[in-house]
């Protein structure tokens, strides 16, 4: 349960020196993608930060988001932060099950009324609630009940943020996002399939440190992580500017590390921190390993008409993206753009006619 001790007191009790605390603050600033000049402010805020209660609800999801988070969970800054939040309910991770687990959720809600953070991964089925229930409670009912007294909601992963894979055509469950249902609470969307672990912990660290939510973009994603497109931060960008593109995955251009735009990279319309935060303890990220960005942190990325079709039309309703993508299409030539419009049209038509019966017949 949430404690009255501040994080500063707690760290000192664990024998962390002042130099250690300074290091912790430096790493926290880096984790939150804040400039190093913020370290003194972070140190001051962490000295006063209380241990918040966190309730984590998993709905229609694949547990990839939890995997992403826990795989990064070796003793690190992230784990130090997790030592200082009180994860009171997470039905995948907690030892309790059944009625005891639900009792823990209710107790945390009651004791921390109005103060706890609600984390949600997975979409919510509205078409038929029977597709996903927990302890006999529908996802919709549990979300509404738990959101009621939350201080803020963090929608982790593209499913919770935008509907994600469950919402892909033909959306058999009638899947919707958290923000489609909850309208009266601050919601932070941490999209990605899965999201970058340090982005998940960075957002929680921000709330823990400052007791407030970070600046958000038009999709309610934290600007510090989602403020720039993959394309703008990509180390292969200069090749795009010079018109040097890989045409296949094994041609000379691919071997020389040229731009993957023509191979379907969705970097120009995707906003995420992969190019700087990277994956697997900073080892690499999709473009660095030779594959285009799938655009997994954007709404409706699954129904964009093919991961390997060059981008010429936007898959999100971001007006800036429309302008950018159109310009990019022009740069590549009208013929290529026309071809892609045709592909997109075909994909849209094809998706419109797919039913569960069709899928069963073809399998």
């Amino acid at each position: 349960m949430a404690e009255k001790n501040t994080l500063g007191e707690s760290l000192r009790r664990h024998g962390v020196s002042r130099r250690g605390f300074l290091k912790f603050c430096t790493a926290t600033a880096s984790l939150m993608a804040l400039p190093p000049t913020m370290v003194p402010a972070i140190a001051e805020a962490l000295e006063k930060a209380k241990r918040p209660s966190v309730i984590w609800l998993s709905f229609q999801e694949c547990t990839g988001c939890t995997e992403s988070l826990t795989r990064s969970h070796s003793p690190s800054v992230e784990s130090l932060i997790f030592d200082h939040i009180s994860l009171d309910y997470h039905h995948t991770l907690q030892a309790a099950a059944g009625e005891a687990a639900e009792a823990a959720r209710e107790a945390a809600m009651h004791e921390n009324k109005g103060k706890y953070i609600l984390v949600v991964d997975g979409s919510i089925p509205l078409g038929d609630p029977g597709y996903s229930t927990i302890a006999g409670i529908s996802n919709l009912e549990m979300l509404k009940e738990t959101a009621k007294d939350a201080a803020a909601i963090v929608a982790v992963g593209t499913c919770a943020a935008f509907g994600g894979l469950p919402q892909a055509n033909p959306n058999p469950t009638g899947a919707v996002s958290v923000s489609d249902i909850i309208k009266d609470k601050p919601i932070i969307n941490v999209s990605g399939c899965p999201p970058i672990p340090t982005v998940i912990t960075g957002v929680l660290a921000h709330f823990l440190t400052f007791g407030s939510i970070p600046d958000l973009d038009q999709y309610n994603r934290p600007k510090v992580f989602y403020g720039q497109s993959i394309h703008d931060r990509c180390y292969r960008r200069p090749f795009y500017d010079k018109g040097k593109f890989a045409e296949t995955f094994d041609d000379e251009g691919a071997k020389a590390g040229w731009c993957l735009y023509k191979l379907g990279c969705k970097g120009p319309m995707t906003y995420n921190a992969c190019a700087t935060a990277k994956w697997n303890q900073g080892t690499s990220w999709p473009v660095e390993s030779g594959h285009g960005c799938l655009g997994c942190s954007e709404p409706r990325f699954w129904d964009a008409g093919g991961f390997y079709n060059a981008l010429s039309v936007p898959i999100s309703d971001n007006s800036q993206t429309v302008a950018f993508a159109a310009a990019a299409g022009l740069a590549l030539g009208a013929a290529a753009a026309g071809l892609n419009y045709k592909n997109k049209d075909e994909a849209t038509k094809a998706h419109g006619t797919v039913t569960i019966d069709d899928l069963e017949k073809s399998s």
Partner: protein
Amino acid sequence: MSVFDNKSSESPSSCGLAGMSHNTLPLLNEVSHALKRLVRTGESTIIDLRAIPFGPGDEARLINLLGKGEVQATLDTLGKTTVTETRFAGVWLVDHYNSEDERIAFQIEIIDIPELLRAQTEDMYESLDLLGEVVEVEKQKLNGGSPAIQ
């Protein structure tokens, strides 16, 4: 000749990826401007290298170009931290690791001495008390009193 013509780097960037390092030169320029600011106004700068979109080999190339200076220090708190002065005085590489030896922050500090190396004021006050106790115990030993073993 540009810095990209430097073939002495043993970094992975030289493995068939020539021309891919585009972030080293702008970063070196940023360091140069920061050092100028430090010299002229005393204002220090910290650059978070985890916020820079490095391509393969960029980081190794940068470290290679900055080289090693006279001072190297290691701190052991919440995991290891190495502080290395580069061959450019006032330009430091500060590399933070956790107890699992995973990097948690990596910065270039342009400053006379990184803050982390300074003794912290609160620690010095505590040390003053501690030193007083040690002096007291040693005095008692000299006066033939029983040694006060804590």
